[in-house]
């Protein structure tokens, strides 16, 4: 229900100018604007009779008055993050909720609980919570607060509250029904543009994801061969006298080059790869958000159509239409503002990610050149 959903989050006058949003997104640049600091670390394995799972430590430091304490430490598992995400989507259907790392990784033989997998997931979960913390609306969401502060049993009992299964199913049915009519025919041009943009963006970011992974793979293969290359020169120097020093020199240069290659690879996997992957997930999320907006619009449109045919319940329907019109306007504004914010973020992230790649490569070549 729209009115209830909006009451859950603290929404002051909806800022409509994108510029006021910009000041609030660069969390890395201006730490003094933040009053909520979250870290995700210390993965721990838990083995029960039924299952094995990992929990992560979530530490929150805050100066906000609505928090009872200034520091919290809780343990959360992946399921809990999933719950939080679905609650946020429920409360804010047309806001762009940050992506969670995937449940499993299908491609690549990464074992479910390998160190690499856990570390990648931990970093992504850390990013997820921080992106929420930096979102002007989501940061004040009640479920978010509970997620950060509640002890394990408190969280379990809180999870059991809220709209029951039946009412959630009802919501889904309504959504499906209105999606049949689509809400596309009355869609404002701006959102059609967004849709077109997202279709292309989604394509391109997926290709970029493949390219970035391919580059990483090629660099790793290169590194593997180079590891064998240097020692041959050292071996050769053993049977030479005059040339031995030159050979040993080349051997040590090649070995240093190897180390530099390792650093370059690490730079890719720590920076570019996760960011591109995040935006691959974002592109799916955005398509979903646009659909949900269309659904909300669809609800309004079907009521308007009903008004035209059912003259008897005119007053009732008109009242409903009024509410729905508000709902649509809120949804549209929320999305528009969040979209601008997202685009700014994306631009910043891409710029810094690729600049970082360039810097990594420069560092690599400078190092190798210096060695020789």
């Amino acid at each position, binding site marked *: 229900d729209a009115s209830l959903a909006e009451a859950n989050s603290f929404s002051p006058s909806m800022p409509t100018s994108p510029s006021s949003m910009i000041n609030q997104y660069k969390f890395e640049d201006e730490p003094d604007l933040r009053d909520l600091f979250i870290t995700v670390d210390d993965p721990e394995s838990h083995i029960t009779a039924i299952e094995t799972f990992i929990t992560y430590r979530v530490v929150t430091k805050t100066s906000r008055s609505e928090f009872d304490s200034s520091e919290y430490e809780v343990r959360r598992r992946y399921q809990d993050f999933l719950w939080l995400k679905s609650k946020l989507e429920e409360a804010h259907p047309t806001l762009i909720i940050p992506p969670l790392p995937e449940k499993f990784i299908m491609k690549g033989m990464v074992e479910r609980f390998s160190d690499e997998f856990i570390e990648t997931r931990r970093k992504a979960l850390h990013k997820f919570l921080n992106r929420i913390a930096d979102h002007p609306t989501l940061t004040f969401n009640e479920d978010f607060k509970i997620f950060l502060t509640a002890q394990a049993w408190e969280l379990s009992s809180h999870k059991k509250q809220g709209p029951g299964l039946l009412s959630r199913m009802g919501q889904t049915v309504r959504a499906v029904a209105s999606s049949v009519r689509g809400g596309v025919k009355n869609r404002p041009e701006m959102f059609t543009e967004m849709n077109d943009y997202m279709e292309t*963006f989604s394509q391109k970011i997926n*290709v*970029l994801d493949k*390219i970035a992974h391919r580059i990483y793979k090629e660099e790793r293969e*290169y590194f593997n061969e180079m590891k064998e290359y240097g020692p041959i020169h050292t071996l050769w120097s053993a049977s030479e006298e005059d040339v031995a020093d*030159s050979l040993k020199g*080349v051997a040590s240069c090649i070995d240093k080059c190897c180390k530099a290659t390792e650093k370059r690879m690490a730079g890719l996997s720590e920076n570019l790869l996760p960011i591109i992957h995040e935006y691959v997930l974002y592109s799916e999320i955005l398509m979903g958000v646009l659909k949900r907006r269309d659904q909300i619009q669809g609800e309004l449109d079907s009521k308007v159509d009903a008004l035209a045919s059912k003259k008897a319940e005119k007053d009732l329907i008109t009242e409903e239409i009024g509410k729905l019109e508000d709902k649509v306007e809120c949804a549209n504004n929320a999305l528009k503002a969040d979209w601008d914010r997202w685009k700014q973020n994306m631009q910043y992230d891409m*710029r810094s990610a690729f600049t970082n*790649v360039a810097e990594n490569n420069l560092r690599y070549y400078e190092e190798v050149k210096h060695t*020789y």
Partner: protein
Amino acid sequence: MDDCLSKKIEITVSEAEKRTGRNAMNMQETYTAYLIETRAVESQNEGQCSPVDSLWRRYSEFELLRNYLLVTYPHIVVPPLPEKRADFVWHKLSADNMDPDFVERRRIGLENFLLRVASHPFLCRDNIFYSFLTQEGGWKEMVNETGFQLKADSRLKALNATFRVKNPDKRFTELKHYSDELQSVISHLLRVRARVADRLYGVYKVHGNYGRVFSEWSAIEKEMGDGLQSAGHHMDVYAASIDDILEEEEHYADQLKEYLFYAEALRAVCRKHELMQYDLEMAAQDLTSKKQQCEELATGTVRTFSLKGMTSKLFGQETPEQREAKIKVLEEQIQEGEEQLKSKNLEGRDFVKSAWADIERFKEQKNHDLKEALISYAVMQISMCKKGIQVWTNAKECFSKM
């Protein structure tokens, strides 16, 4: 070295041309012919343009020349030819003998071979070599007339000698060991280098994919568009740059390959020494046994077991006249044998002396060449880094404008 041929004439292998002809079995074949140009050096110094003599030769003729030199100068480390077939290739390089890049590198290798022979103090004086450079027709016949093929030692004989020689010169044994090590380590190095080149190629080329994606992506972006587009262009430049880099490295690989093949030439000299030493040992052994036989016949004592001795015991003694005749024959043979042994010894000593002189010359050349090759490798790496720095500096600027 002042009277070396290389100081008197300028030699170049300037062109390569595809030809078709009929081979020995009258079948059509395609081969490459190389143009050898020679020009006297002196008149150049006087500012005159001296006439260029030229003739065409194919690879098999180079092989014939080298085989002739190997047999005629067994104490010399004869410079090797560039490889017959492309070996140690990484995947983008063609293994096809007709590939223009391979032909070009072979042309350079053949020129290098001729220059090496021309600057060798002894080889440069050889008539056959000179005719190879200057006489187009009838050269093959001339070579065959020298009858060098008959002087060639059989492989089997050489192998036999290797296993049975008792006292080879220690230095040659060490040298053989060294040449084995050199061959093994350079082969390994070349193989890994080819794999590294392959991987490096992959890294660079994949970056080329950025170009197209950035371009398509830039179409939907307003503020990021320009930065993306121009960055994509730099990624294309980066991807393309690897071709030249690896081509240069191929020349470095060729320099190493030359010494890989030189190892074989070193072994050939060692084998010749083993053969001569074995021959000497056999001759000495033969002489000793003949002397003993003579002694036995003369004194009537049998000190060593011999079939002849046994048969004479079984079938009765010989007459004194028969014995005298035998002793005379043996004494003649012993005389011959001693002379032969003397000359073989002399030959052997001369061989060791002149071979070792050439080996010292070779060692100096090798040390110099290898050091230069390694330096050129380092220079190539630095140049590759400089190119990389330039491209990524440009790319970084574009990214920062996104």
